[in-house]
């Protein structure tokens, strides 16, 4: 893992000192809210519906045990004993007091964490595949380049006042688990002969006008990466629609000018940016890469795993859903679900965070990941340790066996916390998970990803959910619109609207009817919901939603 240099530490200490003074000046009245707001946003501090919210970056989703313990400490000492992990691999604290935030930031700095550029019109936390460094299908670990981009973008003088926020995601594998096609820039590590380089996508994004990213360069060599990315952001910085915040994101710029024109402008600008880089970035990259060397994997028998798998049905169910093949034989990638049925997606208590930190230290080479799907990942666990680990997870409400299932729902904070929300999302997720747990049909339904957003901004990625739910305010009533057929992978697709929305009371029965139609019409249990939707199209689902007796009585 990357360790802060003296430069990093000093930079952060200075930023935190500045922010402490800014908070003091706000409280004394020397700064107005209009003056203070951009300053607090630069440091990840929002004012939400019921309280302030501090958003802390978890760079490319990677945490050490010590960092996770510190996150637990913050939750306990300055919040209400929990934190909320988000779809951008950040953690949010929902209840800090303004006067406590400087202390929180100092505590974070002790373990090399911060909240810089988690808000505002800047380049945000760079996200990456949560299986990075462990996945069997990986060309190279995407985190060194994500770290390089983080260092380049942090406090980049040209990019502190962009037309709008700017999000970058990196995958090191052809199977995209980082949703790179829904980012302003998506980067895929690729190989050409013996050379590692980068495929660059641009102009993806969800929100009001969802777009799938388009390829701007098929292969950018390592030496050109930063100057190339800088050229992209720089072209958009000038062209982007500052006159209209709904048209300011790069997806609109690409859409309005066309990808070919944008590519031409970027290539022109690249001639200049490339000349300005002197190769220092390559030295830094080598230094960073050395710190992401794989851990010392061990070679040990794993018959304890096989024995537990054969005899313990609860362990077997968990292993079947929550484990993924590791690149090293004998190891597994373990996903720890933060989606216990009826609980808030992505929330972890301070105690759970400590348990996870202990497990990572004991069984996981001291590494944790936060996935954009709001779960925790222990990327390197030897199979022989899994039965022991599972027992501990069970004792702390962390052994829910539902990864990829209908209850593994992404939900944004929605109107329970977010000031921008038009409806709630969390209780919808809680009700769906509880309902399908009661029905005991989860295993039979198989892979099905539901994603819920509480407004058009789409933090809950609803457009790319197999079933997407968008909460809206229709004439003063919470109303939920459904989309079907979205896909967040390398085959990214935006879901299609089913038709009129459903009320807070009727949305769960509506989801049940969609799932019922799938179970009835699938060719075999092997045909997933998404495959069935692609084969059948919208008609049978629409009929189930709007033409049945239940639907009629709801309409009445």
């Amino acid at each position, binding site marked *: 893992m990357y360790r802060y240099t003296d430069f990093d530490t000093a930079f952060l200490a200075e930023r935190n000192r500045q922010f402490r003074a800014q908070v003091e000046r706000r409280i004394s009245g020397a700064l107005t809210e209009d003056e203070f707001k951009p300053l607090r946003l630069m440091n990840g501090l929002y004012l939400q519906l019921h309280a302030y919210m501090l958003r802390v970056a978890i760079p490319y989703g990677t945490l050490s045990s010590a960092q996770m313990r510190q996150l637990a400490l913050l939750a306990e000492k300055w919040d209400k004993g929990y934190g909320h992990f988000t779809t951008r691999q950040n953690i949010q604290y929902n209840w800090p*007091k303004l006067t406590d935030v400087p202390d929180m930031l100092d505590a974070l700095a002790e373990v090399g964490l911060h909240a810089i550029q988690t808000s505002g019109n800047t380049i945000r936390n760079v996200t990456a595949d949560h299986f990075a460094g462990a996945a069997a299908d990986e060309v190279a670990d995407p985190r060194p380049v994500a770290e390089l981009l983080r260092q380049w973008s942090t406090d980049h003088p040209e990019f502190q006042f962009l037309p709008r926020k700017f999000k970058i995601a990196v995958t090191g594998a052809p199977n995209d688990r980082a949703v790179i096609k829904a980012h302003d820039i998506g980067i895929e590590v690729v190989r050409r002969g013996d050379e590692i380089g980068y495929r660059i996508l641009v102009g993806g994004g969800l929100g009001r006008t969802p777009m799938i990213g388009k390829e701007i360069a098929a292969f950018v060599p390592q030496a050109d990466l930063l100057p190339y990315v800088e050229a992209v952001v720089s072209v958009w910085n000038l062209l982007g629609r500052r006159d209209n915040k709904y048209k300011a994101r790069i997806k609109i710029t690409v859409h309005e000018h066309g990808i070919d024109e944008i590519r031409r402008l970027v290539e022109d600008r690249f001639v200049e940016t490339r000349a300005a880089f002197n190769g220092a970035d390559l030295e830094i990259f080598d230094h960073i890469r050395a710190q992401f060397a794989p851990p010392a994997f061990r070679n040990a028998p794993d018959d304890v795993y096989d024995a537990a798998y054969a005899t313990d049905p609860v362990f077997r169910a968990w292993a079947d859903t929550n484990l993924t093949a590791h690149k090293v034989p004998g190891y597994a990638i373990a996903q720890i679900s933060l989606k216990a049925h009826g609980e808030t997606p992505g929330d972890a208590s301070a105690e759970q965070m400590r348990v996870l930190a202990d497990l990572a230290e004991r069984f996981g080479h001291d590494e944790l990941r936060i996935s954009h799907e709001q779960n925790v990942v222990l990327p390197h666990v030897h199979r022989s340790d899994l039965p022991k680990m599972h027992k501990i997870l069970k004792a702390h409400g962390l052994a829910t066996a539902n990864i990829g299932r209908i209850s593994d729902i992404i939900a944004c904070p929605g109107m329970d916390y977010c000031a921008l929300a038009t409806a709630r999302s969390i209780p919808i997720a809680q009700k769906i998970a509880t309902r399908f747990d009661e029905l005991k049909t989860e295993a039979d339904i198989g892979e099905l990803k539901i994603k819920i957003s509480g407004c058009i901004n789409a933090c809950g990625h609803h457009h790319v959910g197999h079933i997407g739910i968008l909460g809206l305010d229709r004439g003063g009533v919470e109303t939920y619109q459904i989309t079907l057929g979205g896909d967040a992978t390398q085959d990214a697709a935006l879901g299609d609207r089913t038709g009129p929305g459903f009320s807070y009371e009727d949305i769960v029965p509506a989801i049940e009817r969609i799932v019922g139609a799938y179970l009835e019409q699938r060719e075999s249990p092997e045909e997933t919901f998404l495959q069935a939707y692609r084969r059948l199209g919208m008609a049978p689902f629409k009929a189930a939603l709007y033409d049945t007796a239940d639907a009629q009585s709801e309409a009445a």
Partner: protein
Amino acid sequence: MPKPFAPKVVTANALIEGDVVYLAADDAWVRDLAQAEILTDEAVAQVRLLEASARAHEAVGVYLADVAPGTTGPQPTHFREDFRRRGPSNYYHGKQASR
């Protein structure tokens, strides 16, 4: 005919805690909607809004929210204001916990 003026309260978030506050008739910021001053005259409401907005060292994001007069004081007419006066639905946190 112009629409009749919907009754209002002045509301904001407290500067330090971020908690939802309302303006009472005696100019105090109160945490409970029931104690807020109901403004039924549009001109008066605008003046109260201006006065409250000037108290920037106490409250942030001051605005007028619609209410309906009720037996236990002003009642929210929109669900957002209902959540603001109560707290989140997933945990018993916020105002609902401090009653």
